């Protein structure tokens, strides 16, 4: 069984007119994949990530993650699901400005109930593992954009989620920082086997993905593995 399964999923947003963000999407993603959802803006990649990330619910279809049927889970349990299974990296403003880098990393483990000493230790270790330990007591306001995004990735993987969803993580970065970010993501994916699914319209980023899921008008237009 694939780690992520989508069957017949569609989502429509109703504003003044109905927008079919996703229409009849079928998808299977295995554990450990390093995949990118690509397509022009409005193609539905953000919606796809939102649905998989359980911060939105589809109108039709079934979504299964790590064997759990998301679509059958009641709304009030979704937050808990996200807490234990999903890591998020957003385009920007990921980190909490009033917490230090270390504390930002501790946030999700704290929600999970990990005791203070233990979670501080894990966070510190992770920072050291990637050579960013001198940032530990700095506030996000003191970091560069690139540093912030890298810390966001660390925060996402620290609680060892089943998968990390990153919505256009390099959109606000220059090419050097974008590369650094992707290096880190790739390395963590390789070392720890955490599934990465990110959306992008940056060709440089697309080239780094091992699988490309191409979306157009809410449907999967092309889905193929590619050599890095």
């Amino acid at each position, binding site marked *: 069984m694939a780690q992520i399964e989508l069957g017949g999923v569609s989502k429509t947003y109703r504003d003044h007119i109905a927008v079919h963000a996703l229409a009849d999407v079928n998808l299977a993603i295995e554990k450990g994949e390093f995949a990118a959802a690509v397509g022009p803006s409005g193609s539905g990649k953000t919606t796809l990530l939102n649905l998989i990330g359980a911060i939105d619910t589809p109108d039709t279809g079934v979504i299964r993650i790590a064997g759990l049927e998301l679509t059958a889970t009641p709304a009030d349990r979704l937050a808990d699901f996200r807490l234990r299974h999903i890591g998020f990296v957003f385009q920007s403003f990921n980190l909490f400005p009033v*917490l230090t880098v270390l504390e930002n990393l501790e946030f999700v483990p704290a*929600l999970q109930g990990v005791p203070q000493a233990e979670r501080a230790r894990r966070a510190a270790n992770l920072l050291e593992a990637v050579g960013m330990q001198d940032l530990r007591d700095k506030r996000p306001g003191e970091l560069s954009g690139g540093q912030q995004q890298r810390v966001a990735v660390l925060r996402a993987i620290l609680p060892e989620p089943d998968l990390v969803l990153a919505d256009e993580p390099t959109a606000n970065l220059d090419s050097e920082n974008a590369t650094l970010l992707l290096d880190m993501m790739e390395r963590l994916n390789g070392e720890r086997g955490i599934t990465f699914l990110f959306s992008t319209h940056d060709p440089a980023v697309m080239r780094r993905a091992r699988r490309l899921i191409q979306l157009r008008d809410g449907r999967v237009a092309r889905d193929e593995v590619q050599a890095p």
Partner: protein
Amino acid sequence: MLFWQMAWRNVWRYRRRSLLTVLTIGLGLAFNILMRGIGDGFHEQMVDNSVRAEIGHIEIHRAGYQHDPALLKTLPDPQLIEQVVPHTPHLRGYSFRVLGDGLASTADNSAGVSIVGIDPRAERTVTTIDRAVIAGKFLDARMHRPILIGERLAQTLNAHLDDKVVLVVQAADGSMGAQLFHVAGIFRSGSPELDRGVVYLLRNDAQSLFVLPGGLTEAAILLDSSQSVAQAQNYLTRRLSGKGVEVLPWYVVEPFLRQFIQLDDAFFYIIVLILFFVIAVGILNTVMMSVFERVREFGVMMALGTRPGQVVRMVVQEAAALGLFGVALGAAVGSGLTILFAYTGINLAHYAEGASALGITTTVIRPELTASNLVFSDLSVFCVVLLVALYPAMKAAALKPVEAIRHI
């Protein structure tokens, strides 16, 4: 723990806004406490005046006298009362009086008056009427048939010192009693009722005028403060139960005074409510703004797995931190000011004219600070802060992460 840390740091994050909010709460509470203190001090003074002018803290009569006064309703066992009263807790003084009504008459005019027969030395320990004498002297047992009249009565009757005044009464045996008295002194108590309608005689003279040998109508008792009334009343009621007397505290003898105080308190509560409303609006504004500015942050928090209840807690904790500072400031400033004014007194001399019309004879008010009022005010304000913060907190918790994240 983590949320409390975030809440705390968020307070410092918006330093100026937080300071303004703390000031709003603090000053609002301080004003509250000071006003309460002034109100309490004022009321205590009014009670004190009335008590010291005429009625004492407690009065003892024959049972049924208060409801239906009559000359013949004298105290049934004065000796027993004379034994019991000196042991009253918190006692400062007591005095036995003879009370009746009659007509005071001079060549020019007549007026209906209340007649009070007193023992001057005992009366001094209870009331301050002796200090209100503005012409002549207070009564003295050595004088021959003296009468002490109020300033306004003296004007009505056109009576001056040493003039003769006839008192005509219906005596206890039904006959008409009439006797001549000479004006030994004129008093100005500040209370229109006293100055216009009450005359004082030596007790023996009153007893002879009313044909009431040995008869006494009431015992008036002064305590160290009006807070001691309950205890003293308990003692007297216990020791005198079944003896055919009524033991009445000042607010039964003069219910108008207490009603006035209660009415005044009601006005105060309205002001308090307005104050709370102002504080509430201040808090609401602050918290709503800080929530609105962090919509995206809340979105991220909830996407990461924070539950709505935890969001509410965090926002309320921020408000609670502001509330704590505000209450601490308000309590300190409020009690500080109250104690300061209690020391210096607030001088109302400008309003003396109007005040005396209400029977208020004091011109300096000393505010009072009681622990219970202080605690109650603090707690109320703090609760208002928490309650008001709930609204924006719940709004934040109701955000949908999907939309919130997209919020700029």
